[in-house]
């Protein structure tokens, strides 16, 4: 089961989906596009634990984290 984690005011919202299911994968890709289009950054972790930013949807990613656009504080 793959997961898309979206940071929000509740901490985060998790969307789990079966990456082997074509419909679920399509829905996940749509969500990826919507979020990144809205300014969210998508990041995944490599096997060594390093964070990598993804500009395009990765159907093989087990866990993708989305955080909102950064602004000066």
């Amino acid at each position: 089961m793959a997961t898309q984690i979206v940071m929000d005011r509740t901490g985060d919202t998790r969307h789990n989906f079966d990456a082997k299911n074509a419909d679920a994968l399509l829905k996940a890709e749509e969500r990826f596009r919507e979020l990144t289009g809205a300014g969210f950054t998508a990041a995944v972790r490599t096997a060594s634990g390093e964070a990598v930013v993804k500009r395009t949807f990765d159907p093989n990613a087990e866990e993708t984290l989305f955080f909102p656009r950064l602004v000066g504080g």
Partner: protein
Amino acid sequence: MFRQLLRNAKERLRLFLSERRRRARVIRDSLRRQPGRIEPSSRFVPSFRYGYGESEARGLELLKEWLSPEQFAQYDAKSYFEVTGCHSGKRYRISHGTSMNIYELDGAGRPRVGWCFVPKGYLVAGDVMLAQKIALETDERGALTVANKFFRVSITELAIDFYRGG
């Protein structure tokens, strides 16, 4: 006349510092009296959720999952963790918080320049720190471009400098 002004300024600073110390003592004492207060050392103990908002706890859980073992140990012990900027190789210290919580470290590991950038919207501390960590580790230049810079001001250091100068 200048000496008189300086003396007055010194006296006002002394009174100001003394008042701040008194207020800090009052706040510290009142926090110690709160029964639901969480000890910093128990942050990652399973029962640490007690007294915390659920959102805050979720944010910290997520942060914990994404920190490296070294960063996690450092955060658990000191309430901050350090990251390396992907472009400059500089070290940054991210302290627990949601703003003005990033310091660029000098060669000796001392905090010098502060950087302030946060994810847009209201997010809990764990989420903010995680976004800051990923940004510095994957797009340092982009993060610093939007960041506001601030300088570390310690009231103690200011007072010492003032008296030395005086």
